[in-house]
C-alpha cells in the first residue's frame, strides 16, 4: 500500500470522529506548549546571564591572580619571570601586566583636578591584546602619560561643590574642563607620611595619548598610564613599593618589601575561545590561580543545562499525560473499526499495513499536536517577553536593571519537543496498532468484536 494512500486512509479515519480527534490533538498541543514554555524560561534566563557575562568581559581573557606556594594556602604575586612563562604557553596571544599605584592619585591641570587610578602598563603587550588610542601616541619618555577616554569628562573644577555630578554620575558640563588635553602638562600629586607628617609631591607629566572609547556604553575609563621609570621616582619619594601609603607612625607592614617588581594585574589573552580552556588547565597544573569567563560560562551553562533538563522532564510529564488520551483514542478507533479491519484483512491487507496505518494515525495526532503546541508556545513566549517588563514597570515603578529575557525558544527546543512527542505518540499508539493486527477476521465479519 502506497504511503500517500495510507495518509488518505488516516485522514478519512480521523474525519469519522472529529471531536474526539480534536480533543486529543488539543491535549497534545497543550502538553507540548507547556513543555516548550517551561523550558523556554530556562533558555531565556541562561541567555540573559550569558549575555550579561560576555558583555562585561572579554571572552578570551584569563585573569591570573598569583601562584600558590604551598599546601597551606601560601600565595605570591606575579613577576616578570611568570610573565615569561605565560608567554611561552601555546595559543597565548598576549600577556598584559599592570602595576597599580597604591594610593589615590590626584591629577591637576590649572584649576581642575581629578582623583583617579594610576597604572604602569607594558604597552607592546597591551597593543597586542587590543589596546588602541583615539588620539595621540604611546608614551616614550619617563614623563609622558596616556589617559583613559573618560579622563577628560571627570576633570572637574576645584571650586565645584557637592552638586557637581549629574544623575548619570558624570561631572556637569559647567564644571568640566573644556580646554585641550593632548600635549598639555598635568600634575600628579602623591602623598606619604614622613616623621608623622603628611608630605605631598607634585610631579609634572605630559599627556601624549588618549585611549579609545570603551566598547561597552556603560564602561568608564578614567585611569592614567605612567611609565615604569616614573613609578620608580614615586617609590623613591614614598619609600614604599608602588607608592604604598604608610600610616601616621610610618610603620611598614610585614612583607611590604616583596611588593617591588610584582604585578597587580596580569591578564592572558588566548588566540581564540577554544584555547582558553587548555591554557587555564595548564596554568592550574602549575598552581596559578586563574579566572576566565569561559570557565565561569562552563559552570553557568552546566547549572542551566541541569535546570533545563529538569524543566524538559517536567514538560515531558505533560506530554505523557496527553499520550494517555492518544492511547485511549486509538484503542477506541481500533474497537470501532474492527469490522472494517476484518474486511480489509479478508481481502488481503497485510497485518503490517494495518499496523502502519494505526501508527501513522497516532503519530499524525502527535505531530499536529506538537506543531500547534509549538506555534502557541511562540505566541506565549513573545507575549511573556513583551508583557512581563511592562507589568514589572507598572508594579514597581521602574524597569528591570538587567535586560532580562524571560522566555527564549531556540530551534532545538521545538525539535526536542517534536521528537519527544513523536516518540511518546508512537509508544502510545503501538499497543492499539498491535491489537488491530490481531483482529480475528471471522469474528470481525460476524460483528463479534
Amino acid at each position, binding site marked *: *500500500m*502506497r504511503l*500517500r*494512500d495510507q495518509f488518505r*486512509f488516516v485522514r*478519512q479515519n480521523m474525519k*469519522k470522529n472529529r471531536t474526539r480527534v480534536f480533543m486529543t490533538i488539543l491535549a497534545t498541543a497543550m502538553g507540548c506548549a507547556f513543555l516548550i514554555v517551561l523550558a523556554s524560561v530556562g533558555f531565556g534566563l541562561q541567555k540573559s546571564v550569558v549575555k550579561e557575562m560576555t558583555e562585561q568581559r572579554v571572552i578570551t581573557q584569563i585573569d591570573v591572580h598569583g601562584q600558590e606556594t604551598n599546601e597551606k594556602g601560601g600565595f605570591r604575586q606575579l613577576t616578570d619571570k611568570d610573565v615569561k612563562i605565560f608567554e611561552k604557553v601555546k595559543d597565548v596571544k598576549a600577556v598584559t601586566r599592570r602595576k597599580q599605584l597604591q594610593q589615590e592619585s590626584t591629577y591637576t591641570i590649572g584649576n581642575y583636578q581629578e582623583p583617579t587610578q594610576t597604572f604602569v602598563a607594558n604597552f607592546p603587550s597591551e597593543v597586542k591584546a587590543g589596546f588602541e588610542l583615539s588620539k595621540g601616541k604611546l608614551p616614550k619618555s619617563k614623563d609622558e602619560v596616556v589617559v583613559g577616554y573618560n579622563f577628560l569628562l571627570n576633570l572637574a573644577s576645584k571650586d565645584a561643590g557637592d552638586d557637581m555630578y549629574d544623575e548619570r554620575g558624570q561631572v556637569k558640563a559647567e564644571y568640566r574642563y573644556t580646554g585641550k588635553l593632548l600635549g598639555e602638562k598635568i600634575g600628579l600629586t602623591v602623598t606619604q607620611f614622613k616623621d608623622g607628617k603628611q608630605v605631598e609631591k607634585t610631579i609634572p607629566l605630559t599627556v601624549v595619548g588618549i585611549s579609545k572609547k570603551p566598547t561597552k556604553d556603560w564602561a568608564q575609563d578614567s585611569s592614567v598610564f605612567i611609565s615604569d621609570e616614573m613609578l620608580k621616582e614615586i617609590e623613591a619619594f614614598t619609600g614604599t613599593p608602588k607608592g604604598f601609603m604608610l600610616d601616621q607612625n610610618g610603620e611598614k607592614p610585614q612583607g611590604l618589601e616583596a611588593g617591588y617588581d610584582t604585578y597587580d594585574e596580569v591578564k592572558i589573552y588566548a588566540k581564540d575561545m577554544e584555547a582558553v580552556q587548555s591554557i587555564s588547565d595548564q596554568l592550574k597544573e602549575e598552581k596559578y590561580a586563574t579566572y576566565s569567563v569561559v570557565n565561569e560560562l562552563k559552570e553557568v551553562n552546566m547549572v542551566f543545562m541541569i535546570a533545563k533538563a529538569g524543566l524538559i522532564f517536567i514538560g515531558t510529564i505533560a506530554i505523557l499525560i496527553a499520550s494517555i488520551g492518544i492511547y485511549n483514542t486509538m484503542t477506541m478507533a481500533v474497537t470501532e473499526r474492527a469490522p*472494517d479491519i476484518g*474486511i*480489509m*484483512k*479478508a*481481502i*488481503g*491487507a*497485510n*497485518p*503490517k*499495513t494495518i499496523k502502519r496505518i494505526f501508527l501513522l494515525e497516532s503519530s499524525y495526532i502527535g505531530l499536529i499536536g506538537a506543531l500547534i503546541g509549538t506555534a502557541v508556545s511562540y505566541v506565549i513566549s513573545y507575549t511573556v517577553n513583551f508583557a512581563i517588563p511592562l507589568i514589572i514597570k507598572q508594579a514597581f515603578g521602574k524597569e528591570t536593571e538587567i535586560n532580562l529575557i524571560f522566555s527564549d525558544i531556540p530551534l532545538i527546543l521545538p525539535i526536542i519537543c517534536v521528537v519527544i512527542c513523536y516518540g511518546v505518540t508512537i509508544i502510545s499508539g503501538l499497543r492499539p496498532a498491535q491489537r488491530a493486527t490481531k483482529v480475528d*477476521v*471471522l469474528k470481525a*465479519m460476524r460483528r463479534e468484536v
Partner: protein
Amino acid sequence: MITIKNLSHDFVIGKKGRQTIIPVLRDISFTVEKGEIVTIVGRSGSGKSTLLNLVSGFIHPKEGEIWIGGEKVSELNEAKFADFRIKNLGFIFQSFQLIPSMTAFQNVELPLILKGVNENVRKQQTEEMLKKVGLLDYQDHYPGELSGGQQQRVSIARALIVNPPLILADEPTGSLDSETEEELLQFIKELNRDLGITFLIITHDDQVADIGNRKIELLDGRIVEGVLV
C-alpha cells in the same frame, strides 16, 4: 487449482481444564481443477464453512495440506497468506462485507489500494469494473444506499478487480431474492466461461449447487461418498 490432502480440523471450546474438542472436518481430500465451478453442499454444521475458511486462510488447519495454484498455503503465515490472498483470491460473502463508510467506488478500489496500484490506473480499472457489474451510476453511493443485489454486485466487483484466478464464495445468494439470485448465478457462469475463473462455492441452495461442474457433499465433517459428479 486447489488440492486438499487429508484435511482435518477441530475446535476447542470451554475454559482451560474443562475444554472440549469438537471435530469439524475429518480427513478431507479433493481437488478442484482450473476453470471449474465446484460447489460444496451440506447441512448446517457439516463443516462446509470451516472448509472454506481453511482454504481462505482465515483459520489454520490442524492436520493436512491445502495447495492453491501450486503453493502450499497451509504452511503460510498470516502476512504471507495476506500477500497470496490479494494476488490470487477473490471473495464473495453472504452478507457482502462491504465497508459501510466507503462508497461503492471506494469499496471496489480497496484491493487495488492494498496492492499498491497507481491512482490513475486504479480509477480506470474501478470504473471499468463498476461498468461491468452495471453499477457505474451508483459509484458514489454508500452500501446503505444500495439494494441487496447491488451490494452483492459491488462485492463481486471488489472480488474481480485484482483479476484473481480463483473466487471463493460463501453462500453468495443467501441474502438475495430469487430474481437477483438468478441474475447472480448467470453472472458467475459468464465469468467462468469468459474469463476462466475457478469458483469454489459453499451453499445449501440446490439451485446454486447445480451450477457447478461438480458437487461435493459434506456430512459430519466427511465427504459423502458417491456424490461427486
